[in-house]
């Protein structure tokens, strides 16, 4: 059993952002989440990543109840999330970002022995840098490695977010609108990165508005509206579902 | 025994009102300019020394001195806002550090002008009222009444005038308020100055009761911040109540436990509250 969400709800005062959502994600799947703005997609991902504590319901990860667990522990358990609006460490370079993201990898590599690296930082640093370089290459950011992250374009910043998440060697990667704001070439690159992740065995859960992009490689789609799940199935099933069409596209039936 | 406790509670309430007016200044400043002005205690001291000087040295009638002291404190507030705080809007750490620097400057100024020797104002309103075995000086009661009135008027203004509503709107949602035509920079300057004026009137009234030392500013800002946090920073209505609760806690604490640790009782209470209700007793904003 991989990820199992049961009757998850989140209330902010009087506002119900997520309402009794239940879903399962199997290992190796790629699940796409779609829904109009305000349907609770980002809140759902924030709940899974531990950035928000649920008002009610449970999140079970590999059999373990992680509802309300802190984000750093959830990341250590293998669930990593990227941000819709790229989150960066101002002033630092692209390489430094990825090196910081290598913290979990360093921990897993050396455990307590990493304390020794304080006195002999070189070997561990080189190992980490090698991994960083591989990730940056995949995300087409190798050239920017020493530039300040703030100087990147919007699309590059988003890819940096993905790169950092990849450094954490996630089992389940939650991507919040990775394609929004990206140019055509960047989207192709993103697709390549996601396919590489899939080959690596990483399970993906992707929010996006570009339905075509999602339908292309997601095994399953989940549709949300007003915080509730309204459809769950293959791309064909969900996109053909009348309530989804109404929610997303208004009354007109249109192609994806 | 009950009389003694009651007496202490009453004292605590009166001192608490002084804490409350500083707390109101702290909360207003935080809500509108995004910083905590640690130097507010110094503006209280300015008001106090101004009132003392005008009454005892220039021989002006006390009410006039108070009014002038408030103006002076407000002017000082305006100057420091223009020179310093306008550059630290919404930057909590910088605002904090600048205000701390300002404390040294103002306190040193006071030490040079007035020396550390405590100043006592000649009795303005002598005599006291008795209720059973409890005696309260008239001046303390008048102080309490005036401060209460000022705070109440502030609340009313915030609730009912256009300016007041604009202030509250800005505290809730700065962008929306800007879009609705609220002149935010002026509002921020205004609130900054008003907080200093509030501190000034607190100081001017304080001068009529207690003796003045340049170090009083540091003491009161700590209490004011404690009271504001206790109530919940951003909670305007709670500031006064927070101050009174703090005042009573200290008085009762000093009654049953060593007096030397008087200041500590409020601190301990504060830390305890922060642990269990981080947004304060009444909940704050931001």
């Amino acid at each position: 059993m991989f990820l199992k969400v049961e009757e998850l709800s989140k209330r902010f005062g009087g506002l119900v952002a997520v309402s009794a959502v239940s879903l399962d994600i199997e290992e190796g799947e790629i699940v796409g989440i779609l829904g109009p703005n305000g349907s609770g997609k980002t809140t759902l991902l924030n709940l899974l990543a531990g950035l928000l504590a649920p008002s009610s319901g449970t999140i079970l990860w590999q059999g373990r109840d992680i509802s309300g667990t802190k984000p750093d522990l959830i990341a250590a358990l293998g669930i990593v999330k990227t941000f819709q609006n790229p989150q960066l460490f101002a002033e630092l370079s692209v390489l430094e970002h990825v090196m910081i993201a290598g913290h979990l990898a360093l921990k897993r590599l050396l455990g307590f022995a990493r304390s020794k690296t304080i006195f002999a930082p070189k070997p561990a640093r080189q190992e980490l840098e090698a991994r960083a370089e591989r990730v940056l290459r995949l995300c087409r950011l190798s050239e920017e490695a020493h530039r300040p992250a703030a100087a990147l374009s919007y699309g590059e910043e988003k890819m940096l977010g993905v790169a950092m998440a990849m450094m954490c060697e996630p089992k389940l990667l939650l991507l919040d609108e990775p394609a929004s704001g990206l140019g055509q070439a960047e989207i192709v690159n993103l697709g390549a990165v996601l396919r590489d992740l899939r080959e690596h065995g990483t399970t993906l859960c992707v929010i996006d508005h570009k339905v075509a992009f999602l339908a292309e490689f997601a095994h399953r789609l989940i549709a949300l509206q007003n915080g509730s799940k309204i459809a769950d199935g293959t791309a064909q099933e969900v996109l053909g579902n009348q309530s989804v069409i109404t929610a997303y596209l208004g009354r007109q039936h249109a192609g994806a | 025994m009950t009389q003694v406790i009651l007496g202490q509670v009453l004292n605590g309430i009166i001192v608490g009102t002084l804490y409350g007016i500083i707390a109101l200044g702290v909360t207003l400043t935080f809500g509108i300019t995004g910083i905590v002005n640690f130097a507010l205690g110094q503006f209280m001291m300015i008001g106090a020394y101004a009132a003392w000087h005008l009454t005892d040295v220039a021989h002006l009638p006390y009410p006039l001195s108070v009014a002038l002291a408030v103006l002076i404190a407000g002017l000082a507030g305006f100057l420091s806002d223009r020179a310093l705080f306008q550059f630290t809007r919404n930057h909590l750490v910088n605002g904090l550090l600048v205000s701390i620097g300002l404390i040294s400057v103002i306190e040193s100024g006071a030490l040079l002008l007035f020396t550390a020797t405590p100043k006592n104002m000649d009795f303005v309103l002598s005599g006291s009222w008795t209720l059973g075995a409890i005696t309260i000086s008239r001046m303390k009661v008048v102080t309490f009444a005036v401060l209460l009135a000022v705070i109440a008027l502030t609340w009313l203004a915030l609730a009912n005038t256009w300016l007041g509503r604009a202030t509250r709107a800005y505290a809730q949602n700065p962008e929306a308020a800007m879009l609705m035509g609220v002149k935010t920079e002026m509002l921020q300057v205004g609130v900054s100055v008003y907080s200093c004026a509030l501190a000034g009137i607190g100081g001017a009234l304080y001068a009529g009761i207690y003796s003045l030392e340049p170090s009083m500013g540091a003491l009161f800002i700590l209490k004011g911040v404690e009271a504001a946090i206790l109530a919940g920073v951003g909670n305007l209505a709670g500031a006064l109540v927070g101050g009174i609760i703090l005042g009573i806690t200290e008085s009762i604490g000093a009654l049953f436990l060593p007096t030397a640790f008087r200041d500590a009782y409020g601190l301990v209470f504060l830390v305890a509250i922060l642990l269990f209700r981080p947004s304060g007793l009444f909940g704050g904003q931001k």
Partner: protein
Amino acid sequence: MSAVWLLVPLYMVPLVSHNEVLLTILIFTYILGILAIGFNIVFGYAGQLTMFHGAAFGIGGYATFLILTKLGISFWLAMLPMFVVILLLSMIVGWVCFKFRLREFYFAVVTLAFAELIRLVVLNWNDVTNGTLGLLVLDKPTIWWPGRGVVKIDGTVPWYLLTLTALGAVTIVSQLIVRSWIGRNFAAIRLNEELAQTLGINTFRYKMLAFTISNLFAALAGALFGFYSNYIEPAQLSITQSLDAIAMVLLGGMGSILGPVVGAFLLTGLPHIIEFSAELRAATYGAILILVILLMPRGVVGLFSRWRHVS
């Protein structure tokens, strides 16, 4: 390049100059520099504004002296239990501040509250601490010197060498920490705590670490200060002590390991260049603080170079 090499030439100063005033200024610079470096770690690198280091500084002095006198052991041995005390205090105060997810402003207030509480205790516990009168410290640390056996560290030049060496040790330790993955995590927490958490960094643990390190350095400085100036008093625990350290760090520059020492030198040396009354000195400190924040956020060192926080 290791910053420590910058300190090596300073060993030559006593050979070149016999000016007591200069050497004394430098001794205080090194001692307060240790305090400032500590604060720089928790604030400049990890981004947490805390006001506890002043209390740690004072406790360093009081605890070392009291342990030394009550147990009759040497200065060095007395420091060990003192460090344990600081460690425990840091863990308690740090736990209160960081566990409860208090926002930045609240740490400053809560650490200030704890520091004030400690000061009040010290001020009033007359049997042990002698209250406002303070304690006279006549003991001196001793060291084994080849050829002379056990020697007391007494007099300007020995103290100069001792404090410079202590500063060197602190600099080496700071550098090792800051240039390691720990320093990277401090920077991450300072720059974007939420992002750091989603990347698996336990921000609570690292904030505690930074806070504890800052207090340990402060305590070391306090012990040296007390035993050098022969006097330990409650004022060494005050908020003013914390503020002085903050001013030094801001003035010298937060972006480098030794920047705070430059700040310490400027603020220690200044009163000697210009004869100030105590009030004017305080006013000048305040004015400097304000000017630095508004005009020179990178401090003096920042004016000369663009050193960055993460290596």
